[in-house]
C-alpha cells in the first residue's frame, strides 16, 4: 500500500477499481505518492507474508459484481483444505487471502434454513457476537482466550497461502481462516448479543454466503477455528461476498434479497450501553498516560491527576504509532479534539488559577512549554528537564523546591502546575496586546430592523428579551456585576448606533449611512455598563420597535454591520462579541453585497463546492480583521428564503462565533427555541481574544487545525473568542520516531481574556502512549473522536473538492484502516469475514452516517443554506456533539416508566425499530422529533397533548403543552435532559406516522437507506467489506 499520505491520511489517492476514484485528494492529504498505488495492497507487515502471491496480482481484481462473485466462490472452494493453523497471533498480519465465498452454503454445516436470507441473518448474528472479541470477558465456551493464548493456539500464521484471484477454479492451498464451519458454533448468537460480553470465544462466526456448488469444505476444523480463532479484539463479520459494489450499486446483479439481519451487525446502541454499564457513574482518574477514557456518552466523574480531562481533550487514539511508517500503514488519523473551555460538571474541581506575580509562568527556555507535570526535576531540584524538547532549564530561584526520595518536588501536590493536567496561569503584561492590561470585553447587539423583522414581531421580541437577559451577563467568579459592557446597533441598509450613556435622559441615535466605508460615530456612551445605563437602555429597547414601525425598508447590508461592530470594539480598545440578528440576503449597495446564487443544478457536479464557498472575497479579510481585534461574531439568522449562509456564516465561523438559523421564523412558534439559544449564548462561559498553541514532545507535531479559528501562520491558532461549546480538532504527524518510554506528550496553551478583562493562560496537558505494535494502536482508538476528525476534515475539503471524491476517500480510508487491522492484527480467518477492531466496531455505521449527511450528499430536500449551515456547525463541534449529530438518539416513549427518572433505553435509528403502537423521541442536537405511530395509545396521546386521539394532535406546535399528568411531566423532563448541555436549542417537530412530514424524520433514521441516496448500514458494511477484501487481496 505504498506511501499513502502519512498517518491519518485517507487513502485518497488510489483509484479503486470499480469506484473510479479520481486522483484528487483533499487538502492536507496531499501526498502525491499515493496516486497509483494499487488498490487493496497492504504492505505485509508480518512474517505471514500476507502478501499472498495472488493477492498481489493486480489483475486479479475485477471491479465488482459477478466477477468477484465467481472469484470468491472459487476461492472459497479451496481453503478448507489447507490451513489448519491455530489462531493467528495477535499481531500477525492478517491472512492475505480473502476467501470470502459467496457460495459456501453447502459447506456451511449449521442446520440452518435453506433460505439464504435467513442463513445470512443467523450467521451474521453469530459473528456479531465476536465483536466483543478480545480480551474482554472470557468466552462462554471454548478456551478462554487472552490473545496470547489464542495466538499460541493458532500459532503464528505462517503458511502464507496465496489467495487465488482467478475467478473460479482456484483452490487455495492452505486456506487460512477461511472457511469455518460457522454454523458449528455452539454459541447461540443471541445470547452473546444480550449479555453483551461476548468473549473471544464465539469468534468468527463467519458466514458463508450462498452455496457454491462444488465447494468442498472440511467442516471440521474450520469450525474449530471459528470458535477459537479470533481471539483478537475485533468484531468479525463476513458478508455475502457476492454483494456487489457500494451502496450506489445496489442495482448490480445479485442478491438484493439477501438482507443481513440488522441485529447481527455491530450496534452503536449496544456499544454505548456497554461502556455505560462498565464505566458509567465511576470516577475516572487521569493518572496514567495513554489510558482510554470512557465514551462521550457515558456519564462519569473525572478526576484530574496529571492529564487533562477528556472533557477538554479527546484523541482519536491514545497510543501513537512509534514511527511514521507505522502510521502510514494503519492510516488511522492521529488527532486530538480540544475543547479548552469545556463545561465541567459541578461535582468536578474547577481549574486552579496559578499566579506567579510579575514573573509570570515558568516556561521552558527552548520550546516555551509551560511548567507542567511532564517536567522532570533533576539535580536536587535546581534544574528541570522539559518533557517536550528535553532541554535542561534552571529552576528560577523563586520557584526552587527540594526533591523527595523519588525525585519529586516536595510541593508536588501543592502546585497545580506540577500535579494536574489542566490549570490556569495569570498572564503578565508581556502576554497582553501592546503590553497593556486589556479592557473588559463588550457585547454589541446588532438588530436588523428591516421591514420583515419589524412586521413579524422579531424586533420586539429581541428587545423585550434583551431587557431581562442582560441581567445575566457572564461575570467572573466573585464579581458582583458583570464587567462586560454592552452596546446597541440597529440597521437596515444604513446603520444606527445608539448612545446610551447613563447621564442622558434619553438615548441618542446616530445614523451612519456611509456603508461603503463604515465607521464608528461615537466613542463615549456607545459601550456602557448595563447596570449604570439600565434606564436608558430600557428606554431604548422600548423605543426601537416603535421607531421603525413605519419603516418599509427591505434591503439590508451585512458586511458593514460586522465592520461597524469590529470598529467599535477597536475604538474602545477591547475584545468582544457581536450578536447579529439578521434575516435576509444583504442586497443593498455596500461591501459584501450578495446576490441569490443558489443553483440546484450545481448539485452533484464538480462545481457543487462553489455553493459552500463565500460569494465574495469581502468576508474573509473581514474575518481576519475581526480576529485581529478580538471581535467574535455570533449570528442569529431568520431566513425565509435563500440568504447565502455560506457567505454570511464565514465571519461567525472564523471568529469563533456561533451561527443559529431559524427557518421561516414565526414568533408564536419559534420564540422559545430562539430565546433559549440567545440566553444560553449570552450566558455561556467564554474567553476572548485567544491564541492557542499546541506543543508536542519531539517526534511529532500538530500539522492541521479545524474549528472556529483563524490561522495566520502554521502554529498559532487565533480565535476572536472561544466558548465552552467550541472544539478545535488538531491533527498530528510524525517528525521522527516516538519512543515507547517517553510517549507522546501534548500541551495545549490558550492565552485569552476573561469576561472581566483579565489576561490568562489556560493549560491542558495530555500524555499518550506510543507503541510499535499496531495492535496497541488499534486497541486505543476512539471511534467518536475519529468521526469528529473525519467529519471536520471532510467538511473542510468540501470547499475544494467534489463531494464524490470526498465520499470515496472516506470509504477508502475506512476500508484501509480496517484492512490494515485485519491484515496485521486479526487472527487469520476467511476473507469473507469482516473483522473489526473492538475500538472501531461502530466506525462503519458512523462513517455511513457521515457519508449520508446532507453536506456530503446533496438531496433535493436539503437546501443549500441548510447544508452550508450544517457544514459550519460541525466544524466547531466537540466529540459529544458530533456523535449525537451523526447518530441521533432515538428513544421509545410509549414504554416510559413514569415513576422512574431514567431515560428509556435508546434504540437504533432504523425504521424497523419503530412500531405503529409506539411514540418515539428522536434528537440529534439540532432537531427533536416526536414520532407518533398511527396506533399510538390514546391515553398517551391524551396525556401528552391533551387531545382525545391521534387525529386531533396538532402537528404545528413546537412546544408540548404543560400538563399535570405524569406522561406529560416525564416526557418533558426527558426532553429537558436530552436538551441539557447541548449548545443548540433543539426545535421540536411532531411527526405523525404516514403523513408527509415523516419524510423529514426518516432522514434521521440513519441506519436505513436514504430516500434520495445514502446506503443503509448493512449495505455500507458490505461495501466496506468488499473494499477491505480488495485491499487484502
Amino acid at each position, binding site marked *: 500500500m505504498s506511501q499513502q499520505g502519512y498517518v491519518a491520511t485517507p487513502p485518497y489517492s488510489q483509484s479503486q477499481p470499480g469506484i473510479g476514484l479520481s486522483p484528487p485528494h483533499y487538502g492536507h492529504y496531499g501526498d502525491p505518492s499515493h496516486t497509483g498505488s494499487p488498490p487493496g495492497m497492504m504492505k505485509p507487515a508480518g512474517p505471514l507474508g500476507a502478501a499472498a502471491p495472488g493477492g498481489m496480482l493486480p489483475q486479479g481484481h475485477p471491479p465488482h459484481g459477478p466477477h468477484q462473485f465467481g472469484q470468491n466462490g472459487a476461492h472459497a472452494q479451496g481453503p478448507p483444505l489447507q490451513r489448519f493453523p491455530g489462531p493467528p497471533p495477535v499481531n500477525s498480519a492478517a491472512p492475505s487471502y480473502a476467501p470470502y465465498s459467496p457460495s459456501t452454503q453447502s459447506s456451511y454445516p449449521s442446520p440452518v434454513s435453506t433460505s439464504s436470507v435467513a442463513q445470512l441473518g443467523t450467521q451474521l448474528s453469530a459473528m456479531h457476537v465476536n465483536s466483543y472479541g478480545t480480551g474482554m470477558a472470557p468466552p462462554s465456551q471454548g478456551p478462554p482466550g487472552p490473545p496470547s493464548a489464542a495466538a499460541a493456539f493458532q500459532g503464528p500464521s505462517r503458511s502464507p497461502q496465496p489467495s487465488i484471484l482467478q475467478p473460479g477454479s482456484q483452490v487455495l492451498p492452505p486456506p487460512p481462516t477461511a472457511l469455518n464451519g460457522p454454523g458449528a458454533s455452539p454459541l447461540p448468537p443471541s445470547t452473546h448479543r444480550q449479555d453483551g460480553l461476548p468473549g473471544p470465544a464465539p469468534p468468527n462466526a463467519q458466514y458463508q454466503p450462498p452455496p457454491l456448488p462444488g465447494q468442498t469444505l472440511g467442516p471440521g476444523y474450520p469450525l474449530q477455528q471459528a470458535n477459537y480463532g479470533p481471539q483478537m479484539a475485533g468484531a468479525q463479520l463476513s458478508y455475502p461476498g457476492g454483494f456487489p459494489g457500494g451502496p450506489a450499486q445496489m442495482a448490480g446483479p445479485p442478491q438484493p434479497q439477501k438482507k443481513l439481519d440488522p441485529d447481527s451487525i455491530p450496534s452503536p446502541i449496544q456499544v454505548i450501553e456497554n461502556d455505560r454499564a462498565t464505566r458509567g457513574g465511576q470516577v475516572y482518574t487521569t493518572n496514567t498516560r495513554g489510558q482510554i477514557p470512557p465514551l462521550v456518552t457515558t456519564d462519569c466523574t473525572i478526576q484530574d491527576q496529571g492529564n487533562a480531562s477528556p472533557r477538554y481533550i479527546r484523541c482519536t487514539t491514545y497510543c501513537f504509532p512509534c514511527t511514521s511508517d507505522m502510521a502510514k500503514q494503519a492510516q488511522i488519523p492521529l488527532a486530538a479534539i480540544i475543547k479548552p473551555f469545556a463545561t465541567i460538571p459541578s461535582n468536578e474541581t474547577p481549574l486552579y488559577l496559578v499566579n506567579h506575580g510579575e514573573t509570570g509562568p515558568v516556561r521552558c527556555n527552548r520550546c516555551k512549554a509551560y511548567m507542567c507535570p511532564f517536567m522532570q526535576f533533576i539535580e536536587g531540584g535546581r534544574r528541570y528537564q522539559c518533557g517536550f524538547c528535553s532541554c535542561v532549564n534552571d529552576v528560577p530561584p523563586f520557584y526552587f523546591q527540594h526533591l523527595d526520595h523519588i525525585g519529586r518536588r516536595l510541593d508536588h501536590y501543592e502546585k497545580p502546575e506540577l500535579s494536574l493536567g489542566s490549570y490556569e496561569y495569570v498572564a503578565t503584561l508581556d502576554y497582553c496586546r501592546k503590553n497593556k492590561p486589556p479592557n473588559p470585553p463588550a457585547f454589541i447587539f446588532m438588530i436588523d430592523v428591516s421591514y420583515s423583522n419589524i412586521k413579524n414581531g422579531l424586533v420586539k421580541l429581541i428587545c423585550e428579551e434583551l431587557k431581562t437577559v442582560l441581567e445575566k451577563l457572564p461575570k467572573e467568579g466573585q464579581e458582583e456585576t458583570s464587567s462586560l459592557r454592552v452596546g446597541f446597533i440597529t440597521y437596515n441598509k444604513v446603520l444606527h448606533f445608539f448612545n446610551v450613556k447613563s447621564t442622558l435622559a*434619553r438615548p441618542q*441615535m446616530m445614523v451612519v449611512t456611509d456603508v461603503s*466605508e463604515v465607521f464608528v460615530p461615537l466613542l463615549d456612551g456607545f459601550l456602557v455598563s448595563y447596570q449604570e445605563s439600565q434606564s436608558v437602555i430600557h428606554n431604548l429597547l422600548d423605543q426601537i420597535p*416603535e421607531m421603525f414601525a413605519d419603516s418599509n425598508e427591505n434591503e439590508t447590508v451585512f458586511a458593514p454591520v460586522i465592520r461597524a461592530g469590529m470598529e467599535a470594539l477597536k475604538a474602545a480598545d477591547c475584545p468582544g462579541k457581536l450578536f447579529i440578528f439578521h434575516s435576509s440576503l444583504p442586497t443593498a449597495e455596500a461591501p459584501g453585497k450578495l446576490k441569490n446564487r443558489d443553483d440546484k443544478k450545481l448539485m452533484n457536479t464538480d462545481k457543487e463546492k462553489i455553493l459552500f464557498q463565500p460569494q465574495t472575497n469581502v468576508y474573509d479579510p473581514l474575518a481576519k480583521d475581526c480576529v485581529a481585534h478580538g471581535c467574535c461574531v455570533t449570528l442569529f439568522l431568520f431566513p425565509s428564503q435563500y440568504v447565502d449562509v455560506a457567505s454570511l456564516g464565514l465571519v461567525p465561523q472564523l471568529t469563533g462565533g456561533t451561527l443559529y438559523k431559524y427557518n421561516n421564523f414565526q414568533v408564536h412558534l419559534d420564540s422559545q427555541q430562539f430565546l433559549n439559544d440567545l440566553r444560553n449564548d449570552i450566558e455561556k462561559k467564554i474567553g476572548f481574544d485567544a491564541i492557542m498553541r499546541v506543543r508536542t514532545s519531539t517526534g511529532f507535531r500538530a500539522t492541521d487545525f479545524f474549528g472556529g479559528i483563524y490561522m495566520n501562520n502554521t502554529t498559532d491558532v487565533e480565535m476572536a473568542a472561544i466558548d465552552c461549546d467550541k472544539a478545535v480538532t488538531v491533527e498530528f504527524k510524525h517528525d521522527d520516531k516516538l519512543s515507547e518510554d517517553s510517549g507522546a506528550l501534548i500541551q495545549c496553551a490558550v492565552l485569552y481574556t476573561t469576561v472581566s478583562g483579565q489576561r490568562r493562560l489556560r493549560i491542558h496537558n495530555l500524555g499518550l502512549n506510543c507503541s510499535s505494535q499496531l495492535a496497541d494502536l488499534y486497541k486505543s482508538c476512539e471511534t467518536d473522536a475519529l468521526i469528529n476528525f473525519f467529519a471536520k476534515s471532510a467538511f473542510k475539503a468540501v470547499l475544494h473538492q467534489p463531494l464524490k471524491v470526498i465520499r470515496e476517500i472516506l470509504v477508502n480510508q475506512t476500508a484501509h484502516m480496517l484492512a490494515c487491522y485485519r491484515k496485521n492484527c486479526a487472527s487469520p480467518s476467511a476473507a469473507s469475514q469482516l473483522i473489526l477492531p473492538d475500538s472501531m466496531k461502530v466506525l462503519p455505521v458512523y462513517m455511513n452516517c457521515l457519508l449520508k449527511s446532507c453536506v456530503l450528499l446533496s438531496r433535493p430536500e436539503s437546501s443549500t443554506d441548510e447544508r452550508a449551515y450544517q457544514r459550519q456547525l460541525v466544524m466547531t463541534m466537540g466529540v459529544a456533539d458530533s456523535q449525537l449529530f451523526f447518530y441521533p438518539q432515538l428513544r421509545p416513549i410509549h414504554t416510559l416508566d413514569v415513576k422512574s427518572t431514567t431515560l428509556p433505553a435508546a434504540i437504533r435509528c432504523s425504521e424497523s425499530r419503530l412500531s405503529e403502537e409506539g411514540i418515539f423521541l428522536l434528537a440529534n442536537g439540532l432537531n427533536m422529533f416526536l414520532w407518533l405511530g398511527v396506533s399510538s395509545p390514546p391515553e398517551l396521546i391524551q396525556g401528552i397533548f391533551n387531545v382525545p386521539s391521534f387525529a386531533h394532535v396538532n402537528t404545528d406546535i413546537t412546544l408540548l403543552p404543560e400538563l399535570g399528568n405524569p406522561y406529560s411531566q416525564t416526557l418533558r423532563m426527558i426532553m429537558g435532559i436530552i436538551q441539557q448541555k447541548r449548545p443548540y436549542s433543539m426545535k421540536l417537530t411532531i411527526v405523525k406516522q404516514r403523513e408527509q412530514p415523516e419524510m423529514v424524520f426518516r432522514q434521521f433514521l440513519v441506519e436505513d437507506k436514504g430516500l434520495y441516496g445514502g446506503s443503509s448500514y448493512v449495505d455500507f458494511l458490505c461495501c466496506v467489506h468488499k473494499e477491505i477484501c480488495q485491499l487484502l487481496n
Partner: protein
Amino acid sequence: MVMLYGRKSQVDYRAKLWACNFCFQRNQFPPAYAGISEVNQPAELMPQFSTVEYVIQRGAQSPLIFLYVVDTCLEEDDLQALKESLQMSLSLLPPDALVGLITFGRMVQVHELSCEGISKSYVFRGTKDLTAKQIQDMLGLTKPAVPVHPARPAQPQEHPSISSRFLQPIHKIDMNLTDLLGELQRDPWPVPQGKRPLRSTGVALSIAVGLLEGTFPNTGARIMLFIGGPPTQGPGMVVGDELKVPIRSWHDIEKDNARFMKKATKHYEMLANRAAANGHCIDIYACALDQTGLLEMKCCTNLTGGHMVMGDSFNTSLFKQTFQRIFSKDFNGNFRMAFGATLEVKTSRELKVAGAIGPCVSLNVKGPCVSENELGVGGTSQWKICGLDPTSTLGIYFEVVNQHNAPIPQGGRGAIQFVTHYQHSSTQRRIRVTTIARNWADAQSQLKHIEAAFDQEAAAVLMARLGVFRAESEEGPDVLRWLDRQLIRLCQKFGQYTKEDPASFRLSDSFSLYPQFMFHLRRSPFLQVFNNSPDESSYYRHHFARQDLTQSLIMIQPILYSYSFHGPPEPVLLDSSSILADRILLMDTFFQIVIYLGETIAQWQKAGYQDMPEYENFKHLLQAPLDDAQEILHARFPMPRYINTEHGGSQARFLLSKVNPSQTHNNLYAWGQETGAPILTDDVSLQVFMDHLKKLAVSSAC
C-alpha cells in the same frame, strides 16, 4: 423688458404709454395703472423717489431657513458660551423659521430634529469627501418622502418634503432643539498629547451645503458655521493635527510652503459657488486664539454675502453681541437681512458695466450693456448676492463707451438702473429698483465740471476696493505700484502745477483728501500683510469689501478724537503729533476702538484723582470717551475689539501703528520735544509721501 418704470421714463399719459429710457421701447401701462395722469402719478414717476420697491405676490413664500453648523472641538467654557448664544438665537427667530443643526468634530452629525423620544442624527466620517449626490443619498433626500403608513392618515404638513426631518419650524421643535443644544458635548474623541483635535470643518460645510441644495434650492437660507479652530482633517483641512507644525503664515505662503492651502481653498470655493448658485449664504463665526483657516474659507462668506466674524473666544462679549446683532430687527419687526438677491444693472447706451466688487457672484448674464473690460467680477450684468443686510454694498464699475461718430450730446444724461430681486426677511419676494441719472460732461472741455462733481470719498473707496480685489490675487508690491500709478495719473490730470516744479503742485478741494486716503490705504492691513496673519488679512478684506462708504473710509483712515480740558472733544489728525500727554484719544479703526490715555492723564488716573470730589471734571473727562465708544460699539457690526490703554501700555501699539509717523526715531529731534510721540518705524510719513507724489506728478517723465 420687464416692468421697469422709472422717473426717467417718458410717459404719454393720454395714450397710457411710456417709453423706456434704456432701450427706448414704448410700453403699455398695465391695467392697474388705468387711472394715471399728470396729477395722479404713481410713485415711480415722482422725482424724489429714486428707489421704488415692489412686492411680488406670485409664488410660494418660503420661510427663513437657518442651518447651524457647530464645531464641538471647543474648550468646555467656550462650548458652553456658544450653546447659550445659540439657544438665545432660537428665541429671536420667528416661529415659522426653519432651523437645522449640524455638529462636527472628528465626525459630522446631521441632527434630525423631528424625532420624538430619541434624538437622532446622521453621522458622517470627517475624512471623506462626498459629492452632493452622495450626501443627499445618505441623508435620504433623494428618495420620495417616506410613504405614510396606511394605519396613520397623512398629517397635513406645512413642508411635507422630506427635508422636514432636518429643517424644522422652530415653533415645533423649540424645546427639542434647546435640549439638544443643552446636551451637546465636546467632541468625545480623545486628543493625544501634542495633537490638535480632529476637526472636520470641510466635510461639515459640504454636508450643510449639500443638505440645503437638496432641500431648498433657490431659496434663501443661511448657513451659520461656528468654528473654534482650523480644519484638521478631510477635505478642506488647513493644517495637520500635529501641534508642532504651526498653521501657515504669510511667510509660508510666500515661500509656497503652505501645503494644504490650495487644496483647501479649492474645496471651499467649490462649496461657496454651489451655495451661491442656490441662493444660500454662509456665515463664519471663528473664535480662537490662533488662526482658524479663514484664509481658505473666506470665499464662503465673500461669495455668498455671509458674515465673517473673528474673535478670540465664544465666551467674549465681542462674539456674543455680534451674534445677537445678526438677529436685530427693524422697526417693522423684520430681520435686517435679506436673501437670495440678484442685482441687475441696466445702463443707457453710453455706459457699459465693467464689473462689481462686493459679496456677490457673477450670474454670467451677457448683454449689450456689459463691457468687455472687466473690473472686479465682470462680464455680466447680473450678480447674485445671497445675503444682504443694510450695510451691504457693491462697488459697481462702469465704462463710458467712446462713440466716435456719435458724441455724447451736450446736456444729455446717462441713466443707470439697479434692479434687485430679493427675498425679504418677512419672506416676501421683492424687487427694488433704483434709477439714477447723471449729466454728461465732456472730458476735454468740461473738466471743471467733472472736478467739481468729483466725490473723493467714494472714489477713494472704489479705488480701494479695486486695490484690495487685486491684492487677493496679485503680489502686494504690484498692487501698491498700480495704486501709486493711478494716483499719479489722477494728480497729473487734475492737479494744477508747473511742469518739473513740485512746489507748484496744487489740488482742488474736491481732490484734496484723496492722496491722504491713498497714503493710509497703502499702510492699511488690506494691502499690507506684514504683522497680520493670513486669517486676519482675510478678515479685514472681507469687511472692507462689503461695508458702506462711511465705514470703509473709517477702515482706510481711522478716526481719531481727542479729549482734553482745553475744550470739547475734537477730531484730530491721524498723526503721531496728536498723541499728547494731557489728552485722551479715541481711535476708531472699525475693527478696533482704542481709548488711549496720554502720559499725564494716565498718571492722574493712577493717582486716583478721578475719585476725588474736587476733581470730578477729571472723572468726566475720563468718562467722555467711554461713552462715545459705547455709542460706536452699539451701532457697529461686527462688534469692534474694545481696547482701553494708556501711554506706554502694550496695547498702545494699535494706535501707534495707525497714526501717520510724522515723528519717528529718525526725525525726532528735528521736530522738538514738545509735541507728539515718536513712532518707532521706518515707514514713510505722509509728508514724505506727498513730497514724492508731487515730484512725480509734475515730472514729465511719467
